[in-house]
Every structure is written in structure tokens, then in C-alpha cells.
């Protein structure tokens, strides 16, 4: 099962490398994007069998013999979990829209209303991409500093909504 998922991940054009294992009774896929960003939603749709969770990494840590360093990978998974707030489902259209956008930009699934953009690995250039997408999809121009300061999802959604109405 894990090997099948690993093989189909490796065969996918958007994936550079992948390692799949079972941790805490969950199938966990560690993936390195082939290009700058990777949409986990599209990846899930493309796979016949899907893991329970993804962890996106800049590179796969390897042990001395060239196999994946599972201890280090497990640490990365723990680190990602600590970056997240207890899950609160997005509650309105703007929160759901931004959650989907962040998920694509950050390579993190199930982003919740209380999650923080910078804590999840965001940086200023990615914030500019949020700004461009908001312009295109919602016709609203949000200054970058407003996106920076309102880096928690539900706060960002509220400020974007208020600017759209103004």
C-alpha cells in the first residue's frame, strides 16, 4: 500500500521525490515538489490511492546508506503539527477561498480559521501572490502590509471582506 502510493507519487509530474510510511496508524506521504509550488488538492485527485496526510519538504533527508532518514522525516511531521492551531473549519466563503489559496501556496492541507500564514512557512513574496489572486478573483486591492498584519486566516478574511464592501 505505502509502496504503491510512493510509486504513483514519484510518477507524477509535479512531484520531485517522495517517501511514504505509516506513523500513528496513518499513511503519511513526504513529498518534494518538482517545481516551485505543488497543489496537494490536484495531487489527491490524480492518485488512485491517497495517503492520510501529506508533508511537503524542500528536500528529502537521507540516511548514510541513501535511504530516507525516517527519524528526521518524523521530526518534520511533528514540526508541521506544532505550527498548526487546533482545527477550526473555515466558516464562510471568503475563509474557504483563502484557505484553498493558502493550501496551494504553502503546500499544507486542511488549513483552519485560526492558522497563521507566517507560522506555516509563508513569506512576503507569497503574500504578494495572495494579493494578486484577490485582485483577479474578487476585484479587491489589498495592500501587502494589510495581508502581513492580518496573518491569521479568519482575520485576513474579515479584512478582505470589509475592503470589498467599502
Amino acid at each position, binding site marked *: 500500500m505505502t509502496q504503491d502510493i510512493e510509486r504513483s507519487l514519484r510518477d507524477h509530474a509535479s512531484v520531485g521525490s517522495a517517501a511514504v510510511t505509516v506513523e500513528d496508524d496513518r499513511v503519511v506521504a513526504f513529498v518534494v515538489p518538482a517545481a516551485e509550488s505543488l497543489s496537494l488538492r490536484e495531487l489527491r485527485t490524480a492518485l488512485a490511492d491517497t495517503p492520510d496526510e501529506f508533508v511537503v519538504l*524542500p528536500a528529502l533527508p537521507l540516511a548514510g546508506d541513501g535511504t530516507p532518514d525516517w527519524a528526521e522525516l518524523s*521530526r*518534520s511531521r*511533528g*514540526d508541521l503539527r*506544532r*505550527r498548526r*492551531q*487546533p482545527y477550526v473549519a473555515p466558516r464562510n466563503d471568503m475563509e474557504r477561498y483563502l484557505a484553498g489559496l493558502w493550501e496551494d501556496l504553502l503546500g499544507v492541507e486542511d488549513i483552519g480559521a485560526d492558522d*497563521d*500564514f*507566517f*507560522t506555516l*512557512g*509563508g*513569506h*512576503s*513574496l507569497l503574500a*504578494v501572490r495572495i*494579493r494578486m489572486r484577490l485582485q483577479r478573483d474578487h476585484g479587491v486591492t489589498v*495592500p*501587502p*502590509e494589510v495581508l*502581513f*498584519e492580518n*496573518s491569521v486566516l479568519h482575520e485576513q478574511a474579515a479584512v478582505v471582506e470589509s475592503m470589498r464592501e467599502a
Partner: protein
Amino acid sequence: MSHRTKWLLRNPAPDAEARLFCLPYSGVGASVFRRWPTHIGPLEVVPLQLPGRENRIGQPGYRDFPTFAKDAAEALEPYLDRPYAVFGHCMGAILAHALVTELPEPQRLYVSSSRVPHWAPDRRYRMPAPGSVGVYHPSMTEEQLAAEVSRVARTVGGADLHPDLVPLALRVLRGDLEMCFGYAPPLTPTGCPISTIGWTDDADVSPDEMGVWQEVAPTTHHVLPGDKLTFLEAPAELQELIEKDFRG
């Protein structure tokens, strides 16, 4: 998960053996450490976020180092319950030194590409040498600063800084430069040993000048291949020396 301080991008791991608090260089936020691993040996990597940048952009930035150091030491107090060290690069090294003098029992201070804080500002900072990247001076015009910031963005991110971000970046940078130039402390020992990291192709701070840190505390010197921005990738040699020196 209940306690959240904006000084840290994420809650430190409760089971970490030790912590490495990391301070960014001028004009940028804690996200510059995003390519660093989460752990270096026993040390959990914990980047610090200063006010005035990224998710703290709404808070006024510091104007002087002592106030920064006192506030940061107070904010970190809950996380000093195990061995820890502090790392800083360029302006981050000056911040790290100021912070360490306010902290109880730090194990080690790591400084990369920075002259010592007790040199007068006009000796500590120079106009960018030819070929240098990422060196700023307060006498530079807005246009010169903008060009340099864009050069750093190209070097680090492979693309020009987005025009939307230039005014913000310059505001943070100008504040940092003024803070650096207004800082002229006496020689202040750290109470813990220092590791210096010089870079062979650093056109700004030479490895020789890193040697002056031994006036501050007992020092272990290192010179690594690379330039002023190589540390962003956390090269293996850097990780090795951090772990080795921490273990003593």
C-alpha cells in the same frame, strides 16, 4: 498551544533537548530562516520575529538595542528552561550579542558576518565594497537601497523584489540602519563562549575581522566557504560546527 507570543513563529517543541534562538539580518523577518532545518543536533531552531516586520508589521520597530534586548529576554523567559544558545547574522549578530547579555546562563553565542558591537558605528559599517551583495549603509539614497534590496531578492529568491513590497522593505531597512548607527556600546562581555563564522567570499566582513570577537569572550573561530548570504541555506558545515561547539 494556548500560549502564543508573536516573538516566535511557532510554539517550541516541549521535548526539545536544547534551543537555538535565531536573529535575522537588517530589513527582514523570521521567515529568512525557512530553509533551515527544524533541528541542528540537540538544538531546536527557533527564529525570532521582531516588531515591524511580517506578522508584526503593525507594531513599531525598535529604535535601540537595549530596549530590544530587555523585551526579548522577557518574552523568551518561558522557553529558557533547558540549555540554549543564540545565533545572529550581520545585524542579527549585534542583536544576538545584546540579547545574550540580558539572558541568564546562555550556553553559547554564534555570530556570523558581523564586526564587533564595541567598534564605533563608522568603523563597524562601511559603504558596500565592489561585488558585495546585501550590504547597506545609511548614507545610501532610497534608490540605492531599493536597488540593493532587489539584488538580495534576486540572489535569494531568483526573482526581483515585487514592486508592491519595495516601500515596505525600505521602511523596515531604514529603521534598522538608523538603529545600528545609533548604537555605540562599550565592550560588553557575554558571560558565555562565542563561535564566530566568517565566509571566504564575504566582500563586506573579512574572516580576519571576525577574530576581534575574542575581545568579548573566549572564542572559537570558523571560516566557511561562501558569501554573505550562504548561511540562508544552512550548509552542512555550518550545522556541524553549531552542533560541535554547542556540545563543547
